[in-house]
């Protein structure tokens, strides 16, 4: 019941992490990079995009990923989620689907980085968009999970 406790803090961190990560991707691909494309010279634009991508990737690996995994794990433990319960229809399967999609999104994001360094710009771009769309799906599934 009511009040702000430890677990609301954990959930706050989890939700905030997701908001910042997905929002960051959106801001980057809808605001920053298009503007850069328009306003910077070709050379500067490429460097800027690479640098921005590298920094966001670093932030993801160093901050967002551990934060999401840590708080997510803690909440699952708190809720008494077991490996077996992930297969149960309803809450378990929704959570499992969310986790699976999250892993795929992360793989796409990692693939984006790899493709970028190898100079495969089209593939990198496609993977970046897939990762962004997929993370919206993660948010959708998260919204389907009942809060407790």
């Amino acid at each position, binding site marked *: 019941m009511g009040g702000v406790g430890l677990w609301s803090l954990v959930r706050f961190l989890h939700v905030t992490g997701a908001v910042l990560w997905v929002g960051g991707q959106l801001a980057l691909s809808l605001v920053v990079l298009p503007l850069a494309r328009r306003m910077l010279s070709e050379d500067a634009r490429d460097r800027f995009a690479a640098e921005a991508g590298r920094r966001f990737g670093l932030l993801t690996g160093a901050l967002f990923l551990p934060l999401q995994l840590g708080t997510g794990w803690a909440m699952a433990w708190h809720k008494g989620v077991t490996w077996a319960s992930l297969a149960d*229809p*309803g809450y378990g399967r929704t959570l*499992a689907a969310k986790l*699976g999609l999250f892993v795929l999104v992360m793989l796409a994001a990692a693939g984006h980085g790899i493709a970028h360094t190898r100079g495969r710009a089209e593939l990198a771009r496609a993977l*970046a*968009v*897939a*990762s962004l769309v997929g993370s919206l799906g993660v948010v959708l599934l998260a919204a389907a999970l*009942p809060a407790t």
Partner: protein
Amino acid sequence: MSSQVDHPAPTDARHPGGLKQPDLKTRQLRAHSVVAVWVGLALVAAGAQQTLPVARWLAVHLFLLGAATTAVMVWSEHFAVALLHARRPDERRSDARLAAVNLAVLGVLIGVWLDRPVLTGAGCVLLVAALAAHLVVLVRMGRGALGGRLARVVGFYRAAAAALIVGAVLGGLIATGHAGPRYYAGLRLAHIHVTLLGWIGLPVLGTLFMLWPTVLGVRMTERTTRVARWVLALTGGGLLTAVVALVAGRRWPAVAGVMAYAVGTVLMTTLLARTIRRRRPVSAAAAWMLGAAAGWLCAGVAADAGVLAVRPLTEAGEDFTLLVPVVIVGFVAQVLIGALTYLLPIVLTGGPRERAALRAVLELGWPARFVALNGGVALLALPLPDPVGTAGLLLAAGAGAAFLALLVRVLVRRGGGAGESPSSRRPVLLGTAGGTVLIVLAVLVANSGGGTDHPADASRAGGNGAAVTRTVDVTLAGMRIRPGRIDVTAGTELRLKVTNKDAQRHDLKVEGGPATPLLSPGQSRTLDLGPVTETRTAWCTLPGHRAAGMTMDIVVRNSTDDMAGMHDGPTAVTDDSNPDLSAGFSPGWKPRDAALAPALAGTVHRIELHAVRRTIEVAPGVRQQMWTFGGTAPGPVLHGRVGDVFEVTLVNDDPAMGHGIDFHAGSLSPDRAMRTIAPGQRLVYRFRAERAGAWLYHCSTAPMLQHMGNGMYGAVVIDPPGLPKVDHEYVLVSSELYLGTPGSAAQVAKMRQGAPDAWVFNGVAAQYAKAPLRAKAGQRARFWVVAAGPGDGIAFHIVGTVFDTVYEEGAYLVEPGRPGGSQVLGLALAQGGFVETTFPAAGHYSFIDHDMRHAEAGAMGMVEVSK
């Protein structure tokens, strides 16, 4: 390419009246974009199984009626022109027919979805009209055309158009409720057969005669024309026979018709197999997929004939519902993918280099997709438990979605035009498509299996402040709907969470209200009835199930009655939580052994008892958390002789609450022995049983009403000296059962009012009615009884017997050898004793609490006496 004459694409170019390539390309692009949209919607519907009312129906019809119909219309016209060397029909009219069909399909789908029979009917009429026009065009095209070697194939297309006309009429009758219950099963089977085997099967079979050799890159065999005639006669004639027979409800002609169709497909497949030569096919991907699809069609038709042969028509529908996904995915979807893989590069491109590039895109990763699709279908087809079937569906859906992504990529690339720079658009589109596919798959996983209360329900319940919302769990099992009756106050917003716990499929239809789709074992679905104002019934619509007893009454009480009840107090007790004692216990449930174990050896007995909470099945299908001594309620029976010492160590393993213990069998100062110990603490309780009797022990912590009412009690049996041996010796602890969260206000209110949900022997309502005690005629049995309460004593009686021995609270009241007898062992709260009787003959002897309110609410059991 060795069979140029029969190749569809070049004929267009050669014909003087034919259209120029770009126009054709644009139209093909448009048509296939429509196909792609239908397929995408079908995947979405398949993913939304839990949230859409008719999702399964929608998924099937979006795919077959939307996507497949559009593809069949386009390609049958295209091939008819090529095969007959005929003039291309007027382009605008073709487009109009295609648009009409799509509009009609939209009408049908929306009509069924929103339950608007008029719209559905209008859609069917438009569909029939558009197809009749299509049929007329196909027939006219044959007149005066040159006619190629394979002109015969066009006969397949004409038969198919006729089949969809029949299918649309039948489907319309079913969907608008004009079929009537008597003909429903037959009409539905006829509808499925004529659409799947006719509208989709026939054109595919016909097209394969021409497509297969070109895909393989070989010349077709001489006998093709002859075989085609035979195949058309067998399949078309067989299908006509089967459909007429199914509508008329005649089983054996239907089997014969399907068999003829099967023979036709086998003939066809044999021809295809003979055509294979040792050389590289033009498109290996297309060849493998078309081949596998033909295989699934053969298997499906054979299984179909088998099902019809062994099952009465009224029951066959169920097996079909299982067969249909296999046919849809294995045959239809695979044929579509295989054919498009080969044909799209031909119709969408000009030169061979461009064609090869496009084919390379469409064949991307095809071996993996091929294995996934067919493996998935195999998993779906096999009778394996639910998770495997779901995995199969996911595999197949994944393969389909992957092709859809490739298709979208091709269409977008072709349709994009040259003006814009494709490099900026394409990755974004690709990425979006990829991400969307991932989301659809994830939602598929999330929504698979049982139901979830989706958020829309919760918000409605919260938002509507005035009405009372009630959700009732309803289970379907063993030809029963439980509960069999729901009492509600007028105006209550009622929601039924329906779960099928049976091994076979069921549904639930509420009179004049919503219905669930057919629920597979384990599936559940929530029905929202809205405010209920009048009494209604609900039932399973499967033939015979209602007659067998699958009905439920929803009884409306006036709110004035309820107001009267409210005066009892603020927490008026509702009766709707009463357990259904006629229901079955869960699988794996075991009754508590009522036999009295022999007295413990020696004179000092050391026992460790842990106070723990356990969830126990306390009534059929009702599990509830109990507070227990030793994990059971009642706790273990302690059996000894006069003079024995019991050293009981109580360990409080309850993390949240203090407990204590009180043994009535010994006399000692309560101060230390009966104190409450905190979680994690231990307490040693030592007493000497100096007197014989059946004693109560129970928790000594306040509020004792709650601690005892939640299960913290048990029996101590101290044999009187010289107690004779009997054939059977049982212990029955009688008590009350209060359902609900232990310690909650509602549950405690019931305890205070003395309004239990059930009365029980040894903790579980009606357990010995389900698992009777056993004895033989002439055998002597002793029943120890302890009244644990916490509110009611017991009048223990065994129907059909007279007690010749009654030992009550330390004294023999009746003994053998005296004239008097006894009918009841009457025990006030916390009293104990035993009775003995000899069963005179074989039969079923009920033992009950003779307070009939208690007996009818669970305090009853059975002794099954055999000879």
